[in-house]
């Protein structure tokens, strides 16, 4: 499992200080497009997505793998649910670890956004000794 909490105002500050450089480095085009579909919720939505990326990194133990933030993507489904899509080195690492499914939950309230991730791994192979 992985969990992360982000202060929304710090994301707003990053957007102000670093602008497109920050947004393009951290978020995919799809994530930015969804976040900006509401002019009043941009920082909230991006903060929740940043928290989701960090939560995935923790759940998959990717802190020392060398993974770009855009390799972990939050995809909004037509149903309104959000799912995690992995790309590049993140996808390779998840596959190598036997990850079968990533479950995501996000929320934001006031100045905080959070995300919780649960990764379902394939069960280890059971080796029976020769009888």
């Amino acid at each position: 499992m992985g969990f992360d909490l982000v202060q929304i105002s710090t994301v707003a500050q990053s957007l102000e200080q670093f602008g497109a450089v920050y947004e393009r480095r951290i978020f995919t085009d799809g994530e930015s497009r969804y976040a900006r579909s509401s002019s009043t919720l941009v920082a909230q939505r991006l903060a929740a997505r940043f928290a989701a990326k960090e939560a995935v990194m923790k759940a998959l133990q990717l802190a020392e793998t060398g993974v770009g933030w855009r390799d972990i993507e939050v995809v909004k489904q037509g149903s309104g649910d959000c799912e995690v899509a992995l790309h590049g080195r993140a996808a390779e690492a998840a596959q190598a670890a036997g990850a079968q499914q990533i479950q995501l939950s996000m929320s934001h309230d006031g100045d905080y956004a959070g995300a919780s991730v649960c990764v379902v791994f394939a069960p280890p192979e059971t080796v029976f000794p020769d009888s």
Partner: protein
Amino acid sequence: MKSTEQAETEIRAVLRDHGRLAQDIATLTSDADLYQAGMTSHASVNVMLALEGKFDVEFPDRMLKRSVFASVDAIRGALTELGAIEGADAQVAQA
């Protein structure tokens, strides 16, 4: 290319301005753990972006590791690897 001394000064300035540390950066040794000093994962993003701007480099994905931004020493090592800071060999050659 910046000297090691100049680089350390600028790294500390970036950490002061963007690291959101709970302690004054001037009181931290160069090997002090910045995360223990209060730097969050999001703050490390800002530190990275500010370092890229200050040193005119881009950290490749393979260097986007927690340990790369864990201390002033670690950051200086990464910037040296990226060619933004004179290596120890160059400084010895100049001495």
